[in-house]
């Protein structure tokens, strides 16, 4: 597993990625993503790309607001130790349901995890875990379902969350 600090470069683009669950533990948040985007300033290959499987981790979260078509869901992490924090806008959801959210997360740092076996492609060849109006599915439902399960989180990501992990799904 390779790990990159995404706090300053802002090279991670969740906009057209697919996710299913948010995992919360010890004031940290981890989201597994399929087809996450990398901006051209990324340290992995320095070109605009998409990744099949990866994880975006938010360290020492202060607050998280999920804005959906049906309303807003807000979390105050009561983590007042942070005086200086990052504000990150992400997209969440999109896998097997259309109730995704635009989320605003305030946190100390952003960490991007990419497995050593991950595939990195041009955005012209996206990774698609379900059939969509414009793209055919090219990642099996079994593989996607397994990837999004909590017991499939790699140790490097799981270690951030601790023993007591809360799971959030939008249905």
């Amino acid at each position, binding site marked *: 597993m390779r790990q990159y600090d995404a706090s300053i470069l802002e090279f991670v*683009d969740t*906009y057209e990625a697919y996710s299913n669950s948010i995992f919360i533990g010890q004031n940290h948040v981890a989201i597994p993503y399929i087809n996450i985007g990398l901006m*051209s300033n990324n340290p992995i290959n320095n070109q605009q790309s998409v990744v099949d499987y990866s994880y975006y981790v938010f360290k020492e979260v202060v607050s998280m607001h999920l804005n959906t078509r049906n309303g807003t869901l807000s979390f105050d992490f009561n983590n007042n130790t942070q005086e200086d924090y990052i504000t990150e*806008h992400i997209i969440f959801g999109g896998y097997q349901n259309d109730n995704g959210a635009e989320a605003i997360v305030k946190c100390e740092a952003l960490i991007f995890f990419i497995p050593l076996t991950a595939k990195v492609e041009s955005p012209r060849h996206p990774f698609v875990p379900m059939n*969509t109006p414009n*793209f055919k599915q090219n990642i099996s439902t079994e593989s996607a379902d397994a990837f999004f399960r909590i017991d499939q989180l790699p140790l490097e990501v799981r270690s951030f969350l601790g023993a007591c992990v809360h799971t959030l799904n939008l249905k």
Partner: protein
Amino acid sequence: MGGAESKMGKGWINYDLKAPKGIKDDIANFSKHFGAASVSEMVVNNPRASFLAHITEALKKDGTVTIRGQIANRYFKEIWNGTAKGMENFEVVPGSKKTGLSIEGHTNSNGTQLRGDANSLNEIILKKKT
């Protein structure tokens, strides 16, 4: 740059990687299709690449670009925040920044509706510097 199906109607040319009608090409090749100072107005919905540097030459003096998107879209955010590559050739039209516009009818590259608050679309108009 209106996706597979542009909603702009007559008098507009859709330029998109997925355009069945119009020009189907990469934004990096924009100047191959449009000569210098030949375009007076552009509308870009939900950009999914850095594009300002590729269109500057083709825009007429005082030509405008209307860009719409959500802040979670990094390519839109860079323009909204004034940090996009090529931004130095444009100025923001005063009073043009709008927030709270409807996402209805706007789609992702995969054809599904944009995610998030129903009124989370933003708009900004840039004018080419003279």
